[in-house]
C-alpha cells in the first residue's frame, strides 16, 4: 500500500470522525441547554469543543513535517478545504451572534454563557461539517 492510499484512507476516516465529533458536540450542548446538564456534561461540551477546534488545525504537520502521509493529508487541496471551512465557521458564528442580538431585544433574560455556548458551537461545528463534506466530495 502506497503513501497515497494510506493518506486517502486516513482522510476518509478523518472526515467521518469530524462528522461524528460535530454530532456529538451538538448532542452534548442540547443536553447542557435543556437543563439536564451537570458539571460533567458542561466539561464534556468544553472538552469536545476544544478538541474539535484543535482538529481543525494542521497540528500533525507541525509535529511531523517529514512524514509522507502527513504531508499528503495536509496538501494544498486539504489546506484550501480547511481555509474554506474556517470561513464557513466564522460566518456561522457571526449569524448566530447577530440572531441572539436580535432575540435579546424581546427576551432580555438571555445570559452571556448561553450566547457564548451557541456561538462557539455554531462556529466550530459548522466548520467541521464543512471540512468533512469538502473532503468527502473531493475524494469521490
Amino acid at each position, binding site marked *: 500500500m*502506497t*503513501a*497515497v*492510499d494510506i*493518506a*486517502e484512507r486516513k*482522510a476518509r476516516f478523518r472526515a467521518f470522525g469530524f462528522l461524528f465529533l460535530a454530532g456529538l458536540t451538538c448532542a452534548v450542548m442540547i443536553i447542557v441547554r435543556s437543563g439536564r446538564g451537570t458539571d460533567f456534561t458542561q466539561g464534556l461540551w468544553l472538552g469536545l469543543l476544544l478538541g474539535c477546534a484543535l482538529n481543525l488545525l494542521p497540528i500533525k504537520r507541525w509535529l511531523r513535517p517529514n512524514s509522507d502521509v502527513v*504531508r*499528503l*493529508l495536509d*496538501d*494544498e*487541496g*486539504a489546506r*484550501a478545504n480547511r481555509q474554506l471551512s474556517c470561513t464557513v465557521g466564522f460566518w456561522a458564528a457571526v449569524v448566530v451572534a447577530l440572531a441572539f442580538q436580535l432575540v435579546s431585544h424581546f427576551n432580555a433574560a438571555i445570559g452571556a454563557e448561553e450566547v457564548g455556548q451557541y456561538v462557539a458551537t455554531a462556529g466550530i461545528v459548522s466548520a467541521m461539517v464543512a471540512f468533512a463534506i469538502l*473532503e468527502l*466530495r*473531493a*475524494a*469521490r
Partner: protein
Amino acid sequence: MTERLANKIKSEREKASLTQAALAELVGVSRKTINTVENGVFTPSATLAIKLAQALSVPVEELFWIER
C-alpha cells in the same frame, strides 16, 4: 466576465496510462487533490501546475488555459 482555469489533465493522464493515484504519487499530493484539479473544482498553485506539467511531459501552458 468570469474566467476559469481549464485543463486537460485527464486526457494527458490517460495518454500516459496513469491513474489518479499514480499521478498523485509522482507530484506528491493526495489523489483527491488530483481529482479536484482535474474536475476544475480546485485551482492549483503555480508550483503544483508546473509539477503536473512535468509529470505528464506537457508544457504547462498546454495543460492549463484560461476559459472565458
